[in-house]
C-alpha cells in the first residue's frame, strides 16, 4: 500500500476540481436565470 495517500489525494483532487467548476457554472447560471426572470417581469 505504498503511496496510497498520494493516489487517493490525486483522485480526490480530480473530482474536487470538476465539482468546484460545475458549482461555479451552476451559480452563474442561477444568477442569470434570476436576471432573465426579473427583466421579463419588468417588461410586462
Amino acid at each position: 500500500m505504498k503511496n496510497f495517500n498520494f493516489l487517493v489525494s490525486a483522485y480526490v483532487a480530480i473530482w474536487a476540481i470538476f465539482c468546484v467548476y460545475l458549482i461555479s457554472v451552476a451559480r452563474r447560471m442561477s444568477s442569470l436565470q434570476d436576471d432573465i426572470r426579473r427583466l421579463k417581469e419588468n417588461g410586462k
Partner: protein
Amino acid sequence: MAGASESRTSSEPAVSPLSIVVVFLLVAAASYGALIAAPEEATMGMIQRIFYFHVSSAWTGFVAFTMVFIGSIAYLRTRALKWDWLSVASAEVGVAFFTVVLVTGPIWAKPVWGIWWTWDARLTSSFLLWVLFVSYLILRTLVDEPERRAMVSAVFGIFAALDIPLVYFSIWWFRTQHPQPVMGDGGSLDPRMWRVLMLCWAAMLGVMTLLIRVRYRLEEMRAEVDALRMEQSRSAR
C-alpha cells in the same frame, strides 16, 4: 445581435438526462479500470494509476483548446457570436482539465522523482499553456462590448493555441524529466494499460462534452439578458 436570435429559451436543459447517465457510466467504468482492472506497473507500483486520468485529462485539454482555435478562426471568418461562445466555453473547460493535469502531475512526481515540480520543457510549456488560457479568460472580462470582446478574444485564442504543439512535442524535442511518449514512436505501453487509458480518455471526452454544453448555455443566457436589457432601454426612450 447575432447571438440573441440564435439562443434557445433559458428553461430548456443544456444536456439530456440520458447523456448524463452515459457519461456517468463511462466515468465509473474508467475509474474501475484505472484503480482495479489495470495491471500494477512494475517500477512505480500503485502510484502509476494516476497516469490514466492524468494523461487522459491532458489529451482532453488539448482537444478543448483546439476547439478554441477552431472557434476563434470560425468567428473571424463569419463574425457569428455562436463561435465566440463555443471558444469561451471550450477555453474554460480546457483550463479545468489542465488544472487537473497540473495538480495530479506533482502528486505523481513527488513519490517517483522525489520532487513536486521541475522547470523542464514539458512541465513549463504545460504551465504556460494553462497561464495563456487563464489570461484569455481574464482578457474577456476587460472588454464589455460583445463584438469587440469576441474579436480580441479570437485573436488571443489563436495565439494561445499555438502553444499546444510545443507542449505535445516537447518530450520529443527536448531532454526532459517527464516520461517518454506512450503512443507513436517510443510508445511501449502494456495493451491492457492501453485499453484502460483509452476508456479513461473516452470518459474524459464525455465529461468535456457535457461541461462545454452547459458552459455554452451560460453564454446563450448572457446574450438573452443583454437582448432583454437592450429591448427595455429602447422601450424606455
